[in-house]
């Protein structure tokens, strides 16, 4: 392996002189400059702070729920408070953390850089989306302070229109957050269409962009349905106009149709960007092109389209017509196929690769395994007669945690570690990161594997009290949850510590082939120095990438050749 006498990027670090442009973090200092910023990276960082804080809050509620369930009967709280706890946990994690997590926080940061563009298409709309997110979060917090809603994150009527808790601010919060999501999606669709660099055709786009694109389509097309549904709910609750409440002449099952018409695609808003970013991580750390690029790309679009057609599988026992259940079950199985294709392609990418098990890759490998469990348990629930027994039990709880936490949030953590050096120009402690990734995997499985068994054995979900025979399952689950909680705090601590003591990051610490790794770490305001615009190489081409000791990261031979010949 050749070693370069002088690294072409050494001028970033300030060692050999000042960088030509200040980084986006230092270009304009001060709180006031941050809150009115139009820079996609700063907005991404602000989202990240908000989302991580919400994640912490949602996590605390989860641990309170798990502690309460350590033994049957009341431990910490009474049944009304318990209902508020699991509602807050669900609503915060879904609406404030997972839905905006990958697209709005990390997508915002990475999308324009991956395109080699200076910013998103509508920077002002981007900032507006962020403030909508803040407003939504504030409304949720208001509900928490006044008298937290106890409806479950699904807000099923007629319970939600009759309960005495502060449902209105919580629903209004979800409504506003929906608009934040719609605007972000709109912004990303336009950005991808208009800012794709010359030479990057649709099938030369990194798979991450395919995921962001399919997600954005869902955000724009599905979220308005949630908006109108929640608005109708508010109209019914405030104006006593009968839409869903049978006491007022409405139909409660209608609410479930409306709600899941959004919320099933919403599951894909959470999982598609996770799958997409995983595709990029796996190929980067395998130092080998992704296997079956087109199949992965098409399966993203296929999942996005199919996700609109399967909402009724949440309602097999709701009293919807038998024929509808039959059709929805059949369509549900079609979702299994593109998901399986993705998994097989990821595994095939590992074949004959050169795998470095860095922290992001460990998260990526746990993602493959956890998503496989999440996907396979979905097959149980798609089969009509089996679902009748498993519906609304802990089996379902475990299944969607494997998909939403085990897959979407693990992907978020992997992606966060992956782009962290790019975001802040610092390397986190690799060893601590690796240990945390393994412990999160162990803690996660300890928490949720027992829930499959107790669900099938007859433990209904959203139960404050339970039959003593389920105690052991709940106890193992609670122990796992605490292991996971502590590990997550440590891993966030590791990231934050790196901001102060971390080694300076090179441009390309992992050997990534996409454009963001040609930008300085952290990038300047417009992502690339004015004098060195990024060079587009064939997608996932690793042939001329090599590790440079002096740089502490990966360089391209062509790049080096260009740098050395002025």
């Amino acid at each position, binding site marked *: 392996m050749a070693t370069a006498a002088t690294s072409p990027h050494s001028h970033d670090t300030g060692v050999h002189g000042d960088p030509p442009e200040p980084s986006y973090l230092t270009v304009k200092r001060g709180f006031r400059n941050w809150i009115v910023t139009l820079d996609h990276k700063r907005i991404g960082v602000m989202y990240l702070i908000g989302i991580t804080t919400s994640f912490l809050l949602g996590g605390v509620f989860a641990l309170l729920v798990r502690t309460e369930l350590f033994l049957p009967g009341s431990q910490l709280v009474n049944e009304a408070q318990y*209902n508020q706890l699991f509602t807050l946990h669900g609503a915060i994690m879904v609406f404030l953390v997972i839905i905006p997590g990958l697209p709005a926080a990390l997508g915002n940061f990475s999308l324009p850089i991956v395109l080699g563009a200076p910013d998103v298409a509508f920077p002002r709309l981007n900032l507006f989306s962020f403030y909508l997110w803040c407003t939504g979060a504030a409304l949720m917090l208001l509900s928490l302070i006044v008298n937290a809603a106890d409806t479950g994150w699904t807000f099923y009527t*007629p*319970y939600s229109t009759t309960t005495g808790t502060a449902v209105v601010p919580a629903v209004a919060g979800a409504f506003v957050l929906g608009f934040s999501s719609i605007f972000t999606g709109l912004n990303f669709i336009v950005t991808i269409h208009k800012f794709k660099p010359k030479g990057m055709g649709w099938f030369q786009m990194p798979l991450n962009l395919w995921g962001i694109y399919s997600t954005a389509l869902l955000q724009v097309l599905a979220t308005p349905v949630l908006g109108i549904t929640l608005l109708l709910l508010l109209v019914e609750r405030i104006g006593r106009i009968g839409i869903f409440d049978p006491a007022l002449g409405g139909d409660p099952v209608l609410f479930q149709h409306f709600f899941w018409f959004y919320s099933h695609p919403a599951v894909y808003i959470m999982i598609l960007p996770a799958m997409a970013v995983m595709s990029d991580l796996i190929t980067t750390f395998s130092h*080998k092109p992704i296997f079956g690029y087109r*199949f992965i790309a098409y399966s993203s679009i296929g999942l996005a389209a199919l996700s609109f057609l399967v909402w009724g599988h949440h309602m097999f*026992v709701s009293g919807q017509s038998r024929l509808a259940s039959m059709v929805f079950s059949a369509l549900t199985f079609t979702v299994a196929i593109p998901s399986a294709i993705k998994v097989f392609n990821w595994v095939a990418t*590992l074949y004959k690769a050169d795998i470095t098990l860095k922290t992001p890759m460990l998260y990526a490998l746990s993602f493959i395994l956890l998503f496989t469990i999440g996907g396979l*348990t979905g097959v149980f629930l798609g*089969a009509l*007669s089996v679902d009748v027994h498993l519906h609304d039990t802990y089996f379902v709880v475990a299944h969607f945690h494997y998909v939403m936490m085990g897959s979407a949030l693990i992907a978020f953590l992997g992606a966060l570690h992956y782009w962290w050096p790019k975001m802040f120009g610092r390397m986190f402690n690799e060893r601590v990161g690796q240990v945390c990734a393994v412990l999160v995997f162990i803690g996660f499985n300890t928490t949720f594997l027992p829930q499959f068994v107790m669900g099938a054995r007859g433990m209904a979900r959203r139960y404050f009290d339970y039959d003593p025979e389920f105690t052991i399952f709940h106890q193992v689950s609670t122990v796992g949850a605490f292991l996971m909680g502590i590990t997550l705090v440590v891993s966030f601590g590791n990231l934050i510590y790196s901001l102060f003591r971390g080694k300076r990051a090179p441009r390309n610490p992992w050997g990534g082939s996409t454009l963001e790794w040609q930008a300085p770490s952290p990038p300047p305001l417009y992502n690339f120095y004015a004098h060195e615009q990024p060079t587009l190489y064939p997608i996932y081409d690793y042939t001329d990438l090599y590790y440079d000791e002096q740089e502490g990261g990966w360089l391209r031979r062509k790049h080096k050749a260009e740098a050395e010949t002025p």
Partner: protein
Amino acid sequence: MLQYLLTFVVLAQPAPAPAGADKPATEQAQPAGDKGKAETAGDKGKAETAGDKGKAETAGNPCDKNAPRPANKPKKTLPPVGARTDLGAGSYWMPPANSDLATHVDSLFIAILAISIFCFVGITIAVVYFAWKYRHRAGHKAQESSSHNDPLEITWTIIPSIICVIIFLVGWKGFVDLNTPPRHAYEITVVAEKWKWSYKYPNGWVDENLHVPVGEPVRLVMRSKDVLHSFWVPSFRVKQDVIPNRYTKIWFEAKTPGVYRQYCAEYCGDRHSFMKSLVVVHPPGGFKHYMEEAEQALLDMPPVELGEYLYAARGCNQCHSTDGTTKTGPSWKGIFGETHQTSAGSVQVDENYIRESILDPTAKVRAGFNPVMPTFKGQLKDEQIDGLITYIKCLK
């Protein structure tokens, strides 16, 4: 409510009667009883005070529900429910399967589980093996390998598709069976409300636990009084949401006698996790016997109480009020002894007229009302008709 009434009847017995021993006092029946009591705590307080001070002076008054019962009349009580038989039974994954359909559901579950474990183990082995075999080390580089392979992609698209189609078809078949009750199924009405289940039997008996015969198909017609609930018996693998303003149905045929748990599976508020009851599967003949006992327990009530019970249980309250409001039929309040114009001339409301109106409602229809009442001929026993007459008499 009835549980409470029965309890009360027991309490109101003269001292020598072994009141405590009569009450079904198993651990399982207790919570249900408690719930009933809590609901009617107000009534109970009132009744007790009235009973205490009124015992002596109101003896012989048929309208006093608390009148002491003649000591020579034996008190019928229902047999205790007994302990749960599904506790700790069943396989590792599933509670005991108590119907043929449940066994079918389990087979499909186990089949999917086997496929899932096979796939998961395969994928895990591949991931771990590749991650180890192709790990980065000095001198190791990614080897040339194809980045796509259409035959492979098509293979791993088609095989899962075929498996999925088979699983779908088997699941669908099971679902159709779960939703197609045999014609002769025994029908029980289920009413769900925050936070209790009531099971109404064709003979008017209302129970807090579900009693069913073994080996006979049972069909439940369910409705909710307030929010969504969901009726779930894990041992039968049946679940169905219960919805206000709409009937939902479910059926099952129990294979083994015993006591099984029943839950509410759809979140319904504070005491959601306490909204449960028991399913008592009676051995052959046991169910008929239980229903006779239940009917006897009804007849054993003081007539006025029986009348009040039947007024609600048999649906008289749908058309007749007890507070003077006119509904589809005339109000019962103060009606006894009055004289009214009917389709067959002027009639005084007495015992015979009430009896006739129950058994042959269209014979003398009061002026201003339509002949819409169904006959109860053959459905009510003489004692029950007596109860209704006494109840009407007492509505002053």
